[in-house]
């Protein structure tokens, strides 16, 4: 009777597991052209709106204070190539950080026409440096959704974690009972 009840509870939990969500605040950032864009979100839940995000440089000094908009997005324009750390703190006990190492903004694509023609070679193609900058910018733009997807994928609650945890608890109980039973003899 009791065992049946336990089995029913566990199977129900397994079935509704698809709808279970983690409760953890996360932050994600990626470079998009010259800017660093990112957002703060709850894994499984919504975005964190109007939250303060502190930006620290490679030496650990606070250099900027941003605020997330209604979609939880923040935007930062870095001045130099550096390691940046973004940290969000919700105040009710959640805190999360994201490190971005060796951020390097793709060099400015030159918009000045006069300069542009000047740097072009005889055949009218942009020179090597300009070309590399263009490609870098395009790649970082195209990779952004992929990076976001990867971060979301990592956050997915994995079913085997739940089973693993329950397994640990049963194991601990079993080991403890074994030692107690040795003492009893």
């Amino acid at each position: 009777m009791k065992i049946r009840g336990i089995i029913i509870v566990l199977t129900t939990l397994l079935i509704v597991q698809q709808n279970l969500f983690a409760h953890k605040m996360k932050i994600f950032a990626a470079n998009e052209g010259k800017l660093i864009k990112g957002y703060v979100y709850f894994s499984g839940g919504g975005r964190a709106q109007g939250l303060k995000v502190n930006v620290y440089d490679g030496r650990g000094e606070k250099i900027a204070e941003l605020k997330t908009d209604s979609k939880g997005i923040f935007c930062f324009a870095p001045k130099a190539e550096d390691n940046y750390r973004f940290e969000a703190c919700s105040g009710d006990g959640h805190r999360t950080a994201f490190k971005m190492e060796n951020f390097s903004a793709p060099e400015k694509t030159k918009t000045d026409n006069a300069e542009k023609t000047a740097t072009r070679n005889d055949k009218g193609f942009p020179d090597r440096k300009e070309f590399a900058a263009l490609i870098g910018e395009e790649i970082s733009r195209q990779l952004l959704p992929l990076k976001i997807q990867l971060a979301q994928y990592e956050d997915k609650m994995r079913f085997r974690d739940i089973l693993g945890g329950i397994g640990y608890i049963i194991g601990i109980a079993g080991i403890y009972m074994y030692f107690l039973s040795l003492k009893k003899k």
Partner: protein
Amino acid sequence: MHIADGILSPAVLSIGTCGAAAGTIYGICKLKYEQIPRAAFLASAFFVASLIHIPIGPSSAHLILNGLVGLILGSAAFPVILTGLTLQAFFFGFGGVTVLGINTFNMALPAMICCFLFRIPIKNSKSSAAVFALGFLTGAFSVLLSCLMVSFSLFFSDENFFTPVLLLSGAHIPVILIEGIITGFAAVFLKKAKPELFDNGF
């Protein structure tokens, strides 16, 4: 409800760790051989309950079930909740390793207090309605108390945390109600199926 790493001051952290250690040792000493499977089952329930997530506004809250753990296990709530929180920290990234002590303390102490307050009245009450009401109070009160303790932990670490503290308590009102109902039904069921569970006072 789970406080993350690196927010609290060392003083609050050490008080929490000492409290949790004392409670855990006491709980393990009091835990009888035949209670271990029950404790393990509740540890599993506590571990999984934190995944049941209730979205509230911009933040979110999840079930805690510390009232139920306290009601059934009494003083063994400390080792059970410590186990659950440790696994949650490693598997799901809730809370963290340095804050295990204070998180355990904040959730297990209310569980024990509620057991102390409500177990004997539940044992003595005759009607199902009274048992349900007392069970509801157990579940609701333990979450409320945990909220207050988390708030105080944050407040004593940094006084700027006062407004979020109010937010935290507000966000947990649905959780308080749901936990009350769950614990209420559990109390009614256990009173019928296994009334000897409420026999020993604490």
